[in-house]
């Protein structure tokens, strides 16, 4: 990556990135993830891509839902709409307001059959009128994830797959793989009680980017990196 590059190669590299859903950052297109966004190519969270979130325990899964809600709050335009597709939903709409997301802008699709899940997510990702789709799906193969990725490349919808307690963790055609786990909060000035939600955000895989780990806090309506947190393990890939 650091070698001598001709302008042609540079141009081609940018073209490939844009074909894969990584658009160069337009002004005001930040999703408010702070330092985490720097891990992505062009330093910009790819919107027209499918992102995968892993969680193993109910606590991690709740943390992931909270993180997704914060992300959606930034992703959704003024009057945008998003779909939350899953089975046996536990998400409690009033709990999302704390993350800057108005719950009446979400359409919850509660399916009864596992077999309909991926089909419904794919159909939703094809719909250009929607801003983002959260899919709570447990198992997912390479082929299916490729189909989802192709769908979003055409429709420019953001796909967020929340894989709760997955058995297999093989590679998928998703743009990134995350793991969000809860961190102990720190109340302000030693006051009693529970502080703002804090998470250990592990970006396990990023296509064409740099995985890493961060500690984020949700305070005053946006993500804030913890000042004391280590910079994370920086890996050179791509």
């Amino acid at each position, binding site marked *: 990556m650091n070698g001598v590059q001709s302008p042609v190669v540079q141009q081609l590299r940018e073209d490939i990135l844009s074909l894969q859903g990584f658009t160069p950052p337009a002004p005001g297109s930040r999703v408010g993830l702070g330092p985490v966004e720097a891990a992505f190519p062009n330093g910009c969270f790819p919107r027209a891509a499918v992102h995968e979130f892993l969680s193993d*325990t*109910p*606590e991690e*899964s*709740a*943390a992931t*839902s*909270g*993180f997704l*809600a914060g992300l959606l709050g930034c992703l959704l335009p*003024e*009057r*945008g*709409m998003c779909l939350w597709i899953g089975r046996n939903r*536990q*998400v*409690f*709409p*009033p*709990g*999302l*307001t*704390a*993350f800057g997301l*108005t*719950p*009446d802008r*979400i*359409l*919850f*699709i*509660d*399916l*009864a*059959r596992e077999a*309909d899940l991926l*089909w*419904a997510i794919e*159909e*939703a990702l094809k*719909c*250009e*009128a*929607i801003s983002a789709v959260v899919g709570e799906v447990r198992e997912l193969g390479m082929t299916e994830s490729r189909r989802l990725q192709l769908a979003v490349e055409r429709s420019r919808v953001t796909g967020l797959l929340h894989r709760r307690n997955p058995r297999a963790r093989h590679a998928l055609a998703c743009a990134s793989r995350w793991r969000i*786990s*809860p*961190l*102990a*909060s720190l*109340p302000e000035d030693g006051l*009693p*009680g*529970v*502080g703002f*939600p*804090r*998470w250990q955000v592990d970006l396990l895989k990023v296509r064409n980017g740099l995985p890493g780990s961060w500690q984020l806090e*949700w305070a005053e309506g946006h993500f804030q990196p913890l000042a004391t947190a280590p910079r994370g393990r920086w890996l050179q890939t791509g």
Partner: protein
Amino acid sequence: MEKRFVSLWFPHLITDWVLLQKPVLKATPFVLASPRHGRMIVSATSAPAAAAGIETGMVVADARVLFPQLAVFPDREGRAGRLLTELAAWCIRFTPVVALDLPDGLLLDASGCAHLWKGELPYLHDLLLRLRQMGYHVRAGMADTIGTAWAVARFRSDDPVVPPGMMDEALGPLPSAALRLPPEVLERLDKLGFYRIESFLPIPASVLRRRFGEVLPRQLSLALGYREEPLKPVRPLEPYFERLPAPEPILTATGIEIALHHLLEALCTRLAREGKGLRKAFFRGYRLDHEIVQLEIGTSRASCHGEHLFRLFDISKLAPEPGIELFELEAPVVEDLLPAQEALWNLNGGKGMREIAELLDKLTGRAGANIVHRYLPAEHYWPERSVAATDSLEDVPGTPWPVERPRPVHLLARPETIQVTAPVPDYPPMLFRYRGEVHRVSKADGPERIEQEWWLEQSAHRDYYVVEDERGARYWIFRLGHYDGPHSEWFLHGFFA
């Protein structure tokens, strides 16, 4: 096709209805009365009261003279119209065209309907039997004209059916009041000795007009069918319906698709012209073996988008063997298209709403109707009741989403019992055991007491705590009832992010 009309007469319409509400009155004669010029005038009589000689239009005091134990109830304006409208809607099962005949009757256009009951007598018999089973006194007449049917229903008690073209013979022996004449004309007829219709039937219309004015010859020609009488049906008949006969039986999926395309195009053109969209549609195929196969679709929002509607039909579910000879497309539920509503979501310049509605139709079409949920805040503190599901994509919250109290991101459908160690009353527990795992509480907020809404349900209050364990996971737990109460129990209800 020759016209056939049925006139229904409810002689005790309102009192029958009162009897349905209060069956105790069955044996007692009673009347309904309303004040007019400072006197109570009888406006409806029950069958026993009528038998005692009490008529509508009498003063209540006079009626009491005839029958001292008479019960009198106040009457209300417009009740007959409402009752008749209900009965008319019910009668639509006998014919699609039903009209009100105020103050005490209904008119049915039964043309071409009676053969389904294998004849006019069984048709009338079934109609009257069902109405009488409902508790109404009812009489009927059936004839080629509304006037004759009306007359026969009220003035002939033996045979309700007048055969086609026999109006003169049927009307002849009936009194002149059977022609729906105003009282002054009736009075003059009586004075001249014209008690029955047959006595002035042969007189030329010009002579009658000179003597009795325009109304008598007009009513006569209406009853005899020389003049058309308009009928104003309670439900205007204009079905959204298309049909396509096939020149030869259709068996292939391609053929069915072409037929459906044709029908949808015709229907959607009409819907678009009238600014309407369908919410429900039936696609029927009439097979050679006299079976009818049918597909049904529903949409989440009124739509007249042919391509989208076409995709909702699953043609493979239609069994065409041994061949379909006639296709029908019917839209029984149609709503106005509301372009103004697009503005609320403003997605992709207005066409986004349609796309979302079409996506939802596709999803519900395959995975079941009740999978889409959208929530608005409800004004309840009890967590399970704090959101209300809405069917509409357009509703906006009536009240803002509450933010002042912490609410978990995940809520368990049923709170799960936990074992706790809580040494001090009204303090959060020191540790709790959930699914066999011990969590030591390091930080906690609370309690937030939420009382059960006693007018909805009876149970103890809940004291909610937000607790964080040593590993940083945050939970929403509550104690049911008081600390030292008899049923004090602890539950885990949700997870915070």
